[in-house]
């Protein structure tokens, strides 16, 4: 049976997003519906300093905090710069644009269509996850991370 191919897009903003802005845009995206999978990309904000002379000490960071999306609490691990989305259909894109227009008022943004999240396992994925790995999780999870993906229930 041929598997469905879902369209993908990404929202790229001129500035890296504050947690409050991320919370606002993600809540609007969740309300919009039509999003199958999502990845928040950006430079990492670790809880513990990972290297350098201060290695191992606590790293308090105001941008690393919990945000509330839908009915789910999410711990932000990155300073969000790009939102990657896999959609059920390309018809959702105008709604995403409306949502973005509401939130990104102080700086510009772009919505680009393309392929940004992995849909087929590579050889490395096969070696790391085995033959029976759930394809929906492919490209969403860091194989080294102990934390799994977060499932947000849409409305």
């Amino acid at each position, binding site marked *: 049976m041929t598997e469905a191919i879902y369209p993908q897009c990404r929202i790229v903003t*001129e500035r*890296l997003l*504050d947690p409050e802005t991320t919370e606002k845009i993600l809540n609007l995206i969740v309300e919009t519906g039509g999003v199958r999978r999502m990845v928040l990309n950006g430079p990492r904000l*670790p809880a513990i300093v990972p290297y350098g*002379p*201060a290695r191992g000490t606590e790293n308090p*960071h105001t941008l690393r905090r919990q945000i509330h999306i839908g009915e789910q609490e999410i711990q932000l691990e990155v300073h969000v*710069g790009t939102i990657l989305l896999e959609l059920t259909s390309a018809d959702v894109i105008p709604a995403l644009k409306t949502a973005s227009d509401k939130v990104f008022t102080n700086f510009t943004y772009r919505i680009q269509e393309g392929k940004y999240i992995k849909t087929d396992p590579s050889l490395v994925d096969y070696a790391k996850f085995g033959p029976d790995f759930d394809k929906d999780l492919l490209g969403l999870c860091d194989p080294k991370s102990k934390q799994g993906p977060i499932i947000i229930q849409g409305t």
Partner: protein
Amino acid sequence: MAYKPQYGPGTSIVAENRRKYMDPSHKLEKIRDVTDEDIVLILGHRAPGSAYPSAHPPLSEQQEPKCPIRKLVEPTEGAKHGDRVRYIQFTDSMYFAPGQPYLRSYAESYRYRGIDPGTLSGRQIVECRERDLEKYSVELVGTELFDPARTGVRGATVHGHSLRLAEDGMMFDMLQRCLLDKKTGMVNYVKNQIGEPLDRVVKVGKPMDEKWLKAHTTIFHSLGGVAFRDDEEYIEYVQRIHSLRTKYGFMPME
């Protein structure tokens, strides 16, 4: 005719700024007040008020070998006292930060004595004797070569030069060494340059506005700034150097 250094080519404002910062006869404009104690705290090499640890006895107490160069070159204060060699490292945002790594190394080499600058793509380090370092650092942080939001003093974990800015205009810093106080508009250092928390915050002033930054930057930037290809004289010079270097490999006599 006496030799008059030209420092660099170019007709754009960026080229003009580069020449200005490199020229030791141009006095760097003082923008903010940063005390010696503030600098010692940010550097994090010694506790404020403590004595300078030494790497060797003072030169006056040493038997120096007979050497014409040593007679010729006056040692710096730090070298005289036998201070340790310590560093300050800067990360400059490519979004119109006033200093940029290569420019910093050139400017420091023209302006200061007894230094060892190191240039990398997104950061620049300068090493010298501790006493001299503190003197130079006050100037590097207090003058027009520094912007609190777009320049960071970062000894480790320097990532940020080529990243988009945060919504409040600050350059990304994984260790968040400095914070923008939204009430006062001041940038406060809460950690020293390697990311260890400070006992008190160190104020380094307000971020400069976009207009000032574009008038004082030393980076070409085609989005919003001066594009490199718009400065024809600069391109001509760089192409000439490139061509001569390439040819020299084949035909050294040309």
